[in-house]
């Protein structure tokens, strides 16, 4: 056990250090050689796009089951790139494009839909695709409810029939104009492979076989590559040879890689100060486009004092300075239209609210409070019957933009004699649990998105989407504020049961009037969809002048439609 004399150790240390140094030099040489490996020759042969969908750590396993969403452990690309749907509904503008169905027809009474199955489509293993695969998929969703991620069988489908070999007619339980959207989220899987799976809901499907424009080439936890499907049915597409999805642990690392030009397509949370290292560095190639895609609201628990008093809700809304939020907290967050509808859905906004906007007026807020019987206490905070106008505003800790938005709101409300305390909660799960069970005062949160304003209004305002007595609605509440109003429910029902767009518009106009006048929650500003891209390797991305889709790489199957439009850069 005797330790060696120092001289020899010293010699060894020096030797080790020297060899380490040598190794380092060799490695750096290899590295620089490696990165220049994309020589022009190779680039002509094939274009690879590096995609950074979401900084959520390493990919845990090759889980290409299209019925396990990326939020629940699935891999990006399984939905859309590898597996396709019958039809595609663009969630930006609501346009419908036939995919695996060459045609579709929603009946006039919206009680059934008929799909004509596309001919000449092949699975990536060479087997032909047919109506049998569609039937198999529908049956599988019924047999394994956990795979039925859009709730087709629980909410929509009564049964289906096959009038002839290439036609499938699906009958609904009730008239439902939203059926096209549900089918646009239902991925068709091959019968000859999936019928052998013992539980499709938990199967990892490590070797996916789909009809989509790409197939899996190689998977590793740090990155996986999808390669062009030679059998793809749309001739000449896709023009991009490979898609490579990259794992990152956090936004800072993602930022660094973007600024080094390593990434072609990203959906990373942004701040104007990042521009110096990205857009400003190479304005010709590096771009971003942040389009509003859902409305951030201040949700008030309507079952609690004082939010059950309409004047209090109006006072809170009037006291908030939305321009200040944009300046200090959400640089891309345009103040919301009082109806809460998105700019992309301008066609659906009632004529009287087309140009409406919120006005910030502290004096009017205090008048409203006094009208409702509140008096100012000695501490400067309004009160009624001995109860102070004081409440918490929930937000997940670390969601910096929302936390700073609440700081602005807190100051605004204080000026109007309302004490609103930001309440940073330990984790997003604890925070959403509070929302889902109604165990909160107020909270800042998003609204759902969809191809028309109906989807967000329905989730936000329909009575049956709320929690009750401390229990979440099945599948999680979305009517967090507990808005129960039969008139709203009727109008939502009217939209759902007609295929006449004018009648649908009229129904939504009615709901907008309720939203503006009664303020079920307080619309603040729009959340944007994060979308950064480089035109070095590919062109044809959606942007301000050609807004054909939200650009985020994680909206499936919209991302596939973007890739199909891309062309390799000259």
């Amino acid at each position: 056990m005797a330790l060696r004399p120092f001289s020899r150790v010293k010699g060894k240390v020096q030797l080790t250090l020297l060899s380490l140094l040598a190794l380092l030099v060799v490695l750096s040489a290899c590295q620089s050689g490696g990165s220049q490996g994309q020589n022009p020759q190779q680039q002509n042969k094939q274009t690879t796009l590096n995609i950074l969908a979401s900084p959520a750590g390493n990919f845990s396993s090759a889980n290409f089951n299209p019925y396990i969403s990326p939020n629940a452990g699935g891999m990006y690309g399984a939905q859309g790139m590898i597996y396709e749907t019958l039809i595609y509904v663009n969630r930006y503008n609501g346009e419908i494009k036939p995919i695996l169905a060459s045609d579709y027809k929603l009946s006039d009474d919206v009680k059934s839909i008929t799909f004509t199955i596309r001919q000449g489509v092949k699975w990536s293993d060479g087997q032909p695709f047919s109506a049998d695969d569609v039937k198999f998929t529908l049956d599988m969703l019924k047999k394994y409810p956990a795979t039925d991620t859009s709730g087709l069988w629980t909410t929509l489908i009564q049964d289906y029939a096959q009038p002839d070999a290439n036609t499938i007619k699906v009958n609904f339980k009730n008239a439902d104009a939203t059926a096209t959207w549900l089918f646009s989220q239902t991925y068709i899987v091959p019968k000859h492979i999936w019928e052998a799976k013992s539980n499709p809901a938990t199967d990892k499907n490590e070797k996916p076989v789909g009809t989509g424009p790409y197939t899996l080439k190689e998977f590793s936890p740090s990155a996986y590559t999808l390669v062009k499907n030679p059998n793809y049915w749309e001739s000449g597409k896709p023009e991009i040879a490979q898609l490579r999805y990259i794992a990152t642990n956090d936004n800072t690392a993602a930022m660094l890689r973007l600024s080094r030009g390593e990434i072609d397509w990203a959906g990373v949370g942004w701040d104007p100060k990042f521009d110096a290292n990205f857009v400003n560095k190479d304005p010709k190639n590096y771009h971003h486009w942040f389009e509003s895609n859902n409305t951030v609201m201040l949700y008030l628990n309507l079952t609690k004092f004082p939010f059950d008093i309409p004047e209090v809700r109006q006072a809170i809304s009037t006291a908030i300075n939305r321009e200040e939020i944009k300046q200090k907290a959400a640089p891309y967050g345009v103040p919301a239209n009082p109806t809460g509808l998105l700019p992309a859905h301008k066609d659906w906004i009632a004529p009287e609210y087309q140009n409406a906007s919120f006005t910030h007026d502290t004096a009017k807020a205090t008048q409203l409070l006094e009208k409702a019987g509140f008096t100012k206490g000695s501490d400067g905070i309004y009160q009624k019957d001995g109860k102070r106008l004081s409440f918490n505003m929930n937000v997940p800790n670390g969601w910096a933009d929302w936390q700073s938005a609440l700081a602005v709101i807190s100051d605004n409300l204080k000026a109007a004699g309302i004490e609103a305390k930001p309440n940073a909660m330990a984790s997003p799960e604890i925070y959403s649990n509070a929302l889902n069970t109604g165990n909160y005062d107020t909270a800042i949160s998003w609204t759902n998105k969809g191809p028309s304003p109906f989807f967000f209004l329905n989730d936000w305002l329909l009575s049956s989407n709320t929690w009750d007595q401390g229990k979440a609605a099945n599948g999680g509440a979305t009517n967090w504020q507990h808005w129960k109003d039969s008139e709203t429910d009727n109008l939502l029902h009217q939209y759902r049961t007609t295929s006449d767009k004018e009648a649908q518009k009229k129904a939504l106009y009615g709901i907008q009037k309720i939203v503006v006048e009664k303020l079920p929650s307080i619309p603040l500003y729009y959340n944007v969809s994060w979308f950064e891209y480089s035109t070095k390797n590919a062109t044809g991305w959606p942007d301000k002048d050609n807004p054909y889709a939200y650009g985020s790489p994680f909206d499936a199957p919209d991302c596939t439609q973007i890739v199909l439009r891309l062309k390799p850069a000259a």
Partner: protein
Amino acid sequence: MRHLLRRIAFYLAALWASVTINFILPRLMPGDPVQAYVNRLRGQGTITQATLDAIRLQLGVSNDPLWIQYFHYLGNLLRGELGIATSHFPTPVVQVIATDLPWTIGLVGVASIISFLLGTLLGVVVSWKRNSWVDTVVTPLLTFFSAIPYFWLALGLLYIFSFNMGIFPLGGGYDALSDIYPGWNLDFILSVLLHAILPALTVVISSISGWVLGMRNAMVTTLSEDYVLLARAKGLPERRVMFTYAARNAILPNITGLGMSLGFVVGGALLTEMVFSYPGIGFDLLTAIRGFDYSLIQGIFLMIAIAMLTANFLSDIVYALLDPRVRHERG
């Protein structure tokens, strides 16, 4: 031998205790794993109570009384079944850990050992040449480096060497941007080595001063012992006095420290993994805690407990080898 047996009995008891605490702790956390999982499936239409129960079963969350769950848990542990990681559904915990553990051990383990060896050696040299320029420069300098908050140091080095100078890659375990795939090929191995240099350097820089100072202080005490004086008086070569007489005795506290730090290796180095986007256990643990993934939390804690106990056991053995008093229990 008796000493060894007693230690083994002690470690078995400690293992049982840590396994039990491991079972209880996650269940004391506020929140419900099934609800957390369902939240992630938002937009799944209507989920009936039956589906919720099915998910519960799938995730291995049962409504049995705690003591029954406890025995199920012990039984599963013995069979090596750690359940399904809900945050990586439907991947088993064992697979999640197996994917990331080699990266963690490779990077943090090797860096810790390098740091220990370099630091201890430096401590010996510094104490031997006490009050020389080596001592007055090296010791405060290292203390200064280790006083820099780790993430700041790591980000700084990343900014200078990777971002500005481009000598090292920006992060990741290997070059995932070219067509390199994990396996026993030269491209991959070189790429892994290159990607490990900067993270390893930060780990070494931030931890080395502890070893140096520990060794230096222990050496200073030992050097004033009579047997060192005797060894010198006998006219033994200086190196021999330094290593076989002084250092062998002074290294004992550092050996304990090494046991501890090797035990911690398995827990991953979260900050390193964050800054360098390096694959590893630390980030898994973070996502598991955020997502109420009890099985994965338990799996990782179990690894940490076992690694900790093993490392301490090994350092006990080394102790016995280095110090005859421990061996003969006549301390």
